[in-house]
Structures are given as C-alpha cells and as structure tokens.
C-alpha cells in the first residue's frame, strides 16, 4: 500500500519544455534488485554532481536480505542522491524522482516513507509483457496502486533500448540510467564520460567504452522520451578552493594516512570494514600496513603493542568489536598507551542491525571498560570531520598518552559529500621514533602534578627501560598495590581529561543564544537537526541547536548555555522510553544516551527524543517533532 506522507507536494515540474528549468535541489533515487548496479549509478552521478559544484549527499539503500529473490521488496537495493545549489548535509525527506528497474522494490521504499504524492517514478516497463502471467498481473496492479496513491509513474522501455547495445542489460542498465539522469539534470558530458572512465579504469578500455556507449544511449533516450529537464546551479563558484568528494569511511582512511599513522590493525565488521578496504588499497604507497587480525581482541592488542613500541596505531571497528576490545582499552588507559580506536556505529545490541545507523555506543565508549578508565571520546558529525578527527585523535592520543575513541556511524560511513581538500603537511606525519638516550633520572611516568601528563620512553631508548603493566604501578612502573599509589595514579590519569577540558572552548549555539527550546545532538545527525532548526527559525520560532564533538571530556560551558533556554532536549538515534507510553513515567523512564550524560553532568532536566528506525533522521520528521515540543511549551 502506498502511503505518501501528508506533507508531500511535488517538487517535480511537469514537462513540456525543452529549456531546462532551474531548481534549487532535488532528491533522486535509483532502485533495483541487488546486483543491477544501481549503487554504482548513483555514486557516479553524485560524484559528477559534486565535481560540477553542487551540494551532494548520497545514502545507500541496502537490501534487507543477503540473497533476496529477484523482484522482491526485501531485495530493494540502490541509492539516494540529494543534490542542490547549496551545501547539503543530510539525506533530506521524500524523493522527487526515482528510477526503478522493477516495481516490487518500490514497495519497500514506500514502506520507509521515502516517497510522497507527486514523486515521479521512471519505471522499467518490460514486466508488462513478461511471459509469466503472475508477473504481468503484479506489475499492472502495482502501477495502478502507485498512481492511485499519488505517484506519477512513467513506464519506459529502458531495457529494450539497452538490448541494442548489450546482451546483458542486467549489467549495463545502470550506466543507461546514469545517462538518463545526466540528461534530466543537465550534467556536463565531458565530466560524465571522465567519471565513467575512472569508475571502470581497472576493468580496461573495452569495458569503459561499452559503458560510455550505454551512457550515451541513456542520454539520447531521455532527450527523446522524457520531458523533465532541470538545471541545478553550483553553489561553489570559487573554483580556486579545491574540494574532494568521499564517503565517511574513505575520509577515515585518508585521516589515518594524513595523521601519519603506519598501522591499521582490524578485524572485518560492517559497516567499518570498507574503511580498512580503502586503507588497504593505498596504504602501501605511504609506507603503511593493514593487519587483519584473528579477532578484535588481537587486533587492538596488536595496535597497543605497536603504539607501545613508538608507532601509534589505529584500530577500526563497530559496536560488537568495541565490546570485545574493552579490556584492552582499559589496559591502554591504565598503562597510558596512545591509541586511536574508530567505532563506526551500527544498530545494536548484539549483532543488531549490521548495515544500519544507530548512535548507541556512546555509553559503552565512555564507560565500557571495568574500573575507572578515563579516555578521550570524540564524535564526527560530518564526513569532513571523519578525516580531520582522525588526525586530531592521534595528536590527542600522543599528547595525553591516552586512548582516543572516535565515533562515526553507518550514515557517515556510506554517505558521500564534497568538502574542502585538506592541505596535507609533512609535519602531520610521524616523526621518526626517538631513539636518543633517555635521562635515567626521569621515571617512565613522570606525572606532572598539574596536568597528569608525562613523556614516555620508547623501546630502543637507552636508560629508559621500564615494564609497562596493567597492574597498579608507581611512577617507575613498578607494581604497587598500596592505597596511596592507587589513589594517586587514578588522580593522575583522571586529571589529563580535566587538563584537556581546560583547553576547549564552549560549543557554539546554532541560532540565538537564548530561547524557548535548545536541541542538543551529536554525531551524524548534525545536518538534519540544523536543517529543521533553520526552517523553524525562519518561521519565527525561538529554537536553537547545539552539537557536541567532544563527549569525553564533555565540552565546557553547557550548564550556562542550557540555563538560557526554557527547555533542553537531545535528539539521538538510540533507544529511549517515550513518556506517551502509559507504563512509562519519570521514575521508570530510560533516557537516550547523551541525555543521560548531560543530566548527570549539568543537573538540568534535559529531555530527549530518540528513535531506532535504523535510518538517518530526516529533517522533515525532526521539524514535526520539534514543532510539537514548541507547542507544548507554549501551552
């Protein structure tokens, strides 16, 4: 059943024009059975658009099953591309235009609320003449149902057109569709052809050529058959500022290399693995090495060993892997070993939702290890931050002799966005391991009373010999179980966070510094939250937002900022009880994770709104939630 959302109206302007119509943004989806290359089509389209200077955000649509039958809603695979003439920070609301290779996969997108009344669907029509009567019937039933519910369906003979060029349209239709989109959205042809060349560069000339032919055919086809024709102006006219376009996992990989780390020690886990895949592809060019360990415990152990020996290493994982690493993280805290741990969060608990987004590892990152284990926890909120925060993590890890956990998530991992190209400097790389003699009067942990900081001897440094241990130890790293040593060394490790906090500035409020409602978020929800806030503020609402990057230590000045708003509420992608539930009251309600932390920290009655639908938050949904809260405040 089609349930376009109530708010939906068509952004698609009816055809009947040959000159392209200028629009400010569009959300496009390409959906198919898995294996038909819809994702490659969308990624290439996003990349071309980014290179043309548009704001872009892409999100992969991942099938619900591993080997779904053909033509089934569970098999819906594809991609959403949101592009516009301004900076785009999230996946947006409902799609404007969809290219679909069969009608069944659309049911799953409709169930996800991805479409609205007026969404244009360019649908493969070969199913209307399928030899199997069931397929013919299913197809025509779906088309009339879609139309009845407000989708604008155009049935097109895409496959037939492809057959003129290839015997296997299943493999080639995606580039045909790319050609159609290129015509519809007035993409620059030379950029398109160059992008195709790059996409298939490893497959050889022949493959490149046949894909370019399919692309051209799609372009021709759309010029003749489809009247929709748009122009979306670039938002960056300043071409002198170079930009790159990557997904968040590639950004993490680039960050690892830019940070000068030489070792990634990992165990495969979705959705983190592609970061290591990317690193493995290029790491050898910068002299680095990816170690695929036998499990997550060994992966982090290996990284700690390398860090101890002077080569600060990185381990990349997701929730279940983070759980296995906790004992080792405790060791790194206790023995003060610098280390970077990237957690690309997915849905939990246990194996949970492997491919889907959640922000539910915050508390285990902060408090997962047994005992008191202060460490730095950062969260990236944009793809660009995925890159820069890895560099920051390494710096903090070494300066504070501490493990740093960097939280990203499935939304950032697979989302693609253009951002300024970092200007890499040689200073970012690891300086050679110091092998000069150590002053033997300086103990291995020469804690500075003020900051808790201490320089560390590296194996190979004469007179620096010490035994790193996870047992309670003195400043010379001698095992000591006495009360004073334990109390003092806990204090030293803890004050590193206090000292780090002193160097941080209070976060900036998005919107006015005071008002009725303050929305607080962290991680990948930044774009959706700010888009919703901007819309509400344009309507005159007294609402602002705040986004946290440092979660341990928590950024300063929060209590003061909170005091300037009537109400403070977090928006998160993790589970919390809803007060509308008759069983739930203030006493038994479980709060969202950041809300819990903020309540404890600020003693402010911070409310929360959080869901675990497994998909990124949409600005439209947040708009409605926040509006309702503002209304309640006014009543």
């Amino acid at each position, binding site marked *: 059943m089609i349930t376009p959302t109530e708010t939906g109206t068509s952004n698609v302007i009816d055809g009947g024009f040959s000159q392209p119509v200028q629009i400010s943004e569009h959300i496009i989806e390409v959906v198919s059975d898995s294996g038909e290359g819809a994702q490659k089509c969308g990624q290439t389209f996003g990349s071309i658009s*980014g*290179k043309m*200077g548009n704001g872009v955000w892409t999100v992969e649509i991942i099938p619900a099953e591993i080997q779904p039958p053909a033509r089934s809603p569970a098999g819906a695979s594809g991609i959403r591309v949101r592009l516009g003439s301004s900076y785009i920070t999230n996946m947006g609301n409902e799609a404007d235009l969809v290219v679909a290779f069969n009608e069944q996969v659309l049911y799953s997108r409709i169930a996800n609320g991805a479409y609205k009344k007026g969404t244009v669907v360019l649908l493969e029509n070969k199913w209307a003449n399928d030899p199997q009567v069931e397929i013919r019937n299913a197809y025509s039933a779906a088309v009339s149902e879609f139309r009845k519910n407000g989708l604008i369906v155009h049935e097109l003979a895409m496959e037939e057109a492809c057959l003129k060029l290839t015997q296997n349209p299943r493999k080639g239709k995606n580039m045909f569709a790319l050609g159609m989109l290129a015509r519809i959205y007035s993409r620059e042809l030379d950029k398109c052809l160059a992008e195709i060349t790059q996409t298939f560069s490893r497959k050889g000339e022949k493959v490149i050529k046949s894909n370019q032919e399919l692309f051209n055919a799609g372009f021709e086809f759309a010029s003749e058959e489809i009247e929709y024709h748009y122009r979306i102006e670039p938002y960056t006219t300043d071409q002198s500022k*170079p*930009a*790159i*376009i*990557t997904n968040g996992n*590639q950004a993490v990989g*680039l960050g690892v*290399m*830019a940070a*000068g780390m*030489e*070792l990634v*020690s990992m165990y495969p886990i979705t959705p983190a693995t592609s970061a290591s895949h990317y690193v493995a592809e*290029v790491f*050898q060019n*910068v*002299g*680095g*090495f990816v170690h695929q*360990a*036998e499990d997550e*415990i*060994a992966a982090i*152990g*290996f*990284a*700690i*060993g*390398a*860090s*101890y*020996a002077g*080569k600060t*290493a990185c381990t990349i994982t997701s929730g279940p892997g983070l759980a296995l690493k906790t*004992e*080792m993280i405790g*060791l790194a805290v206790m023995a003060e070993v610098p280390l970077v741990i990237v957690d690309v969060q997915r849905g939990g608990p246990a194996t949970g939702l492997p491919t889907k987004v959640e922000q539910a590892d915050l508390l285990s990152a902060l408090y997962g290890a047994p005992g008191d284990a202060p460490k730095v926890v950062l969260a990236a909120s944009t793809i660009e931050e995925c890159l820069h925060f890895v560099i920051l993590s390494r710096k903090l890890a070494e300066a504070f002799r501490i493990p740093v956990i960097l939280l990203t998530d499935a939304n950032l991992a697979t989302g693609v966005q*253009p951002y300024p*190209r970092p200007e*890499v400097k*040689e200073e970012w*790389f690891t300086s050679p391991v110091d092998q000069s003699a150590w002053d033997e009067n300086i103990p291995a942990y020469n804690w500075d009373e003020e900051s808790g900081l201490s320089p560390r001897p590296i*194996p*190979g*440094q*004469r*007179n*620096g*010999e*010490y*035994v*790193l*241990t*996870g*047992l309670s130890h003195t400043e010379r790293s*001698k*095992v000591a179980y006495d009360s004073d040593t334990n109390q003092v060394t806990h204090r030293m490790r803890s004050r590193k966070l206090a000292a780090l906090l002193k160097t941080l500035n209070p976060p900036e409020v998005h919107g006015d510094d005071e008002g009725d409602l303050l929305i607080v978020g962290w991680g990948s929800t930044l774009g959706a939250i700010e888009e919703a806030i901007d819309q509400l503020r344009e309507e005159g609402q007294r609402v602002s937002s705040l986004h946290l990057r440092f979660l341990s230590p928590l950024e300063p000045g929060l209590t003061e900022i909170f005091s300037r708003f009537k109400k403070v509420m977090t928006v998160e992608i993790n589970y919390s009880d809803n007060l509308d539930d008759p069983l739930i009251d203030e006493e038994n309600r479980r709060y969202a994770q950041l809300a819990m932390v903020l309540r404890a920290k600020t003693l402010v009655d911070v409310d929360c709104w959080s869901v675990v639908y497994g998909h990124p938050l949409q600005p439209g949904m947040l708009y409605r939630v926040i509006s309702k809260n503002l209304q309640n405040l006014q009543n």
Partner: protein
Amino acid sequence: MFGLKADWSLEVFERYFTLGDYAGGEARWCPGCGDLAVLNTMHRVLRDAQMLPEKSVVVSGIGCSSRLPHYVGTYGLHGLHGRALPLANGVKARRPDLDVWVGTGDGDCFSIGAGAWIHSMRYNMDMVVLIFDNGIYGLTKKQTSPTTPTGASTNTHPVGAPLPPMNPLTVTLGISNVSFIAQVPDWNPPLLYETIKAAHQHKGTGFVRILQRCPVFSPDFCKPYQENPERMLLLTHEDGIPMDPGVKRVFSEQREHDPHDWLAAMDVARDLSRPPIGLIYLDTDAPVYSEQSAHGMDITDGEKLAALNAALDRFAV
C-alpha cells in the same frame, strides 16, 4: 668522553653487558619454582649474545610466569591474560629492530589465549615464545589448565580433571607456517640454555614448551620425569639442539630425529607417555610476517606526501 664525541660503533664496542645488566626486580616466585631457572637462563642467553638491553622487549600475559618482564632489565610489556602474543606481534610489526621475547603460561597461552596462539604461530614473527607449562593455574591457585593430566585433583575439579589433557605439541605442529618447536624441562640447565639460545637465534617464532615445576600446586606434573629421565625421549640431530655428552648421559632414551621431517615430528610429539625433549620441528624457510608488516618503513616524508596527494587526487572535485 675525553671531550670527544664518541663514534657510535666505538660506543657499542665499549659497552659490555654483564648478567647484572639484564637483571630486573627481585623475582618473587615460590622457592623451587621452575620459573626461576628459566629466568636465569634467559639472562645468560641475553648476556652471551650481548643484546642491547634497550633493544629487547619481554612481553607476557597474566599468571605467575607472566611476571617475567618485571625480572628482566630490558623493556617489558606485562599485558592482559591470554594476550601476550598479539601485543608482542604488534611490538614487532613496525619495529623489526627490536628483539622480542614472550613469556606465557599454559592457561595464558593454551586456554584463554588459544586463538592468538594458533594465529601467532602462523604469523611466525621473528621472536622467542617461552611457554611455562606447569599443568595448572598457579597465580589463581590451582585450577585445572588445558594440560592438567586426567584425574589430577584441582580446586575446580577436586575429584580429578575430567578430560584428557591437550597436547600443545601436536596442536602447534598442525598449524601452517610454524617454524620452530622445541620442548625442554626447566631442571636441566645446559639443555634449557641451548634450547632457548637456539630459539633466540632462529629466524621466525621459536616456540619452546618448557616443562615447568610448580612445587606448590602441581608437584606431580614434573616429578615423574625429574625422577625418571628415562620416561622422556631425547631427540638428537645435527640440526637439533646442541648437547654435550654430559647432557646426553642423563637421558637413556634417545632418538635420532630429523627436525625437518614433519611426519616424524608428529610421531614423537603425539606420544604423551614419553615426552620428547629437544628440537621437534624446524623449518627455516617459513615466511616471517614481520618482514611484510614492516613494509614501507624506509619511505621518506616527501614520498608520503606525494602518495597522499595522489590519493586525494582520486577524490578531487
């Protein structure tokens, strides 16, 4: 010195290390504990090889035996229970210049650390792995270990360990890319010395299972062999562990065993009634993972910068 900056080679020459240079804190093992014998032997091997104390790293897990690094004057890493090997592999990965030693107990290695044991043998990093096998959990006071003999009474199995013990030799032999497997009792100092020395000189992982006395919790684990050396089988071969006639005289049961012969190695290893002593298996051609993991360490910052910029170019808008 004398107002002159000493040339480094001169400096190395000038540094002569005595046993004292390899000594760490005072060992706190029970009297009669076999760990002490291993520690003393290790000091001698280090001294005789004149290893730079700052270039050796002793890595361990948790257990009585895993206190080892605290008693050696080099760098050390006393890690987590069962995790000595991953930590040691990490130390070696990007620092092939370091001389890495691992000390681990039978519980530490064969039980909680079993996964890492299997894979580390396959990595075959250039390091020494000393297994202190006393057939019991010592530090936590007498629980059954994977090598506790069937029927031995422990605090977790007071009426006797229910299962046949694991045979770490056959398991290790079964791992691909394993390159050096030896077994030795802790109470024969010359043989212990030669075995550890051979493991240290071996390029790859020198795996030495030491039958280790724990007079407190598992006296019966070693006693039968200590009192009746004829219950062990001494392996002799020109590529094996060097042994003088004095050592050979102790063992009445001997076999000429070619350590390169895997099938013959399996044959001696599987006989639990007569533990083999000496070099069981040797493969000097097995690939050493530390040679791969250290790839690219000679790349200059300028080259790195160029490569990173090339990586960014691929994503350029």
